[in-house]
């Protein structure tokens, strides 16, 4: 009934010329208001997180909140020096948790050497810059997927104000980059730009390996024709190459096809049931889904996507649910 209402709404909006004209006018107003509105959301949320005073200081302006952020800086420094991922001359190798993130950080290490400023200063601005890019990616994808500037704008605002993503913006980790790549890959696949979707998926997998779940969904929902088979191969080839190269690097550096950080995270007391519920609760603790209340809007939005893109909308809708619950199985819960 809900999807019927959504599709009726879309078709009536399309059929009536007067309504279309009004919609165009309204969208022009929304478009004008969008840039200052999104800029406000970005500055407002950044200000909330950066200007939190604790013990007379503003720690979020000075340090990263995770030790892992500094580990990736160490790898970035090594990569900028000799194009190798080396943590330390003692011990055996391992490789970074997110190779693409360390590669992105590496030019800042060279810059810091030349200018004499600490490298963590320019790196500090990298994730917020990517968060602004994420808002643009989400807007562009939302406008196409949900059929309106307002829908895209509100989606971008929701992602910009998301408290968890605001934390990530200042954490010095790869999360915002991963979100950018996943949303762009999804958008490209919806638009049938297979090569772009394939390249972006490979880059997302190089950022966080569990991103490959989205690629699997692209493959599953690709058409079953001969051309579809070709497209499937084009989709998976770069990601397979990335994983093969990663496994070979791990084997050469650490003597195992799986990287040490992955094996170190595999807790022997792992309880899938426990982890599943913890992550499920974390998700439902997100404000927009707050204990299922937001699901009503989510279903309306998802129905709008399906009515516009049919099966091409499926990966974006299906992706969060297994990834949300299964990614702890990739050893990500103790990062």
């Amino acid at each position: 009934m809900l999807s019927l209402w959504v599709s009726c709404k879309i078709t009536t909006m399309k059929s009536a010329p007067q309504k279309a004209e009004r919609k165009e006018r309204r969208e022009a107003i929304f478009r004008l208001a969008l840039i200052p509105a999104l800029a406000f959301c970005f500055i407002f949320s950044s200000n909330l997180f950066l200007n939190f005073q604790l013990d007379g200081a503003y720690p979020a302006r000075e340090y990263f909140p995770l030790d892992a952020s500094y580990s990736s800086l160490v790898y970035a420094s090594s990569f900028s020096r000799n194009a190798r991922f080396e943590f330390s001359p003692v011990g055996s190798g391992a490789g970074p948790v997110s190779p693409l993130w360390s590669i992105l950080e590496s030019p800042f290490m060279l810059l810091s050497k030349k200018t004499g400023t600490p490298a963590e200063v320019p790196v500090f601005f990298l994730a917020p810059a990517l968060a602004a890019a994420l808002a643009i990616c989400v807007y562009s994808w939302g406008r196409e997927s949900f059929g309106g500037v307002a829908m895209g704008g509100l989606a971008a605002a929701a992602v910009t104000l998301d408290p968890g993503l605001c934390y990530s913006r200042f954490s010095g980790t790869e999360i915002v980059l991963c979100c950018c790549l996943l949303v762009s890959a999804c958008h490209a696949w919806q638009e049938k730009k297979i090569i772009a979707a394939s390249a972006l998926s490979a880059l997302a997998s190089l950022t966080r390996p569990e991103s490959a779940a989205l690629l699997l969904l692209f493959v599953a929902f690709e058409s079953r024709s001969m051309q579809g088979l070709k497209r499937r191969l084009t989709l998976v080839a770069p990601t397979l190459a990335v994983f093969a190269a990663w496994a070979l690097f791990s084997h050469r550096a650490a003597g195992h096809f799986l990287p040490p950080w992955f094996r170190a995270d595999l807790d022997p007391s792992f309880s899938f049931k426990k982890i599943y519920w913890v992550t499920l609760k974390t998700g439902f603790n997100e404000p927009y889904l707050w204990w299922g209340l937001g699901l009503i809007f989510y279903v309306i939005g998802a129905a709008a996507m399906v009515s516009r893109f049919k099966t091409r909308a499926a990966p974006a809708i299906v992706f969060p649910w297994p990834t949300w619950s299964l990614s702890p199985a990739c050893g990500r819960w103790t990062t």
Partner: protein
Amino acid sequence: MVLIACLWKMDDLSSYADHMVFQPCAPFLAAPWAAGVAMSLSTFTERTNNERRKKELAAALVLITLVLVVVVLYPWRMETVRLRALLAQDCLRVGATRVAMGKWIEANVGKDDAVAADEAGAIRYFGKRKTLDLSGKNDAESLADKAGAILKAKPALIVTARKNPSRVSLEQDLWSPLKLGPGKVVYLKPVFAIDLDGDFITAYKTSYEPPRDF
């Protein structure tokens, strides 16, 4: 759903690790949610609808939308307040313990000496010394055999984090043996310690032979 929310007691999700698992899914849940809100509210702006029943339906939808948006705004504020405090706490914890220890190492440890630490990122980055990561995340040898990796690298300093500050006393200035295996002992003497509300991080000088003052 409200009933489930009441019955299902909210856990204290104090760690960001839980959120890191969820983050890449967030745009895919937030975007349809936002579009759903916008679509529901757009009913309000369509005024060419003259049929009374449709108008009533539109009004009801707008009302429900507004109520739900208001209901969602409260947890949004709560979660923002919680996570920004958590960000500041985490930054302070890392800055006052790991970063400070790294800077101390840079100033006090010989350039050719190696250091071993159980969370080695900031210590390696700021300490600028050869560093053995005892957690195994950045070192395959430590993951396979921690004791063997220590004996092979022979670090001049071992940095450990403990939750019990009473167990370490810098004033006593005593060596204590740490058994790494049959016949394998390393002697440790605390030389520097940082205490941040129970997060006690200590640097131990090492000796691989029994020290004279042991």
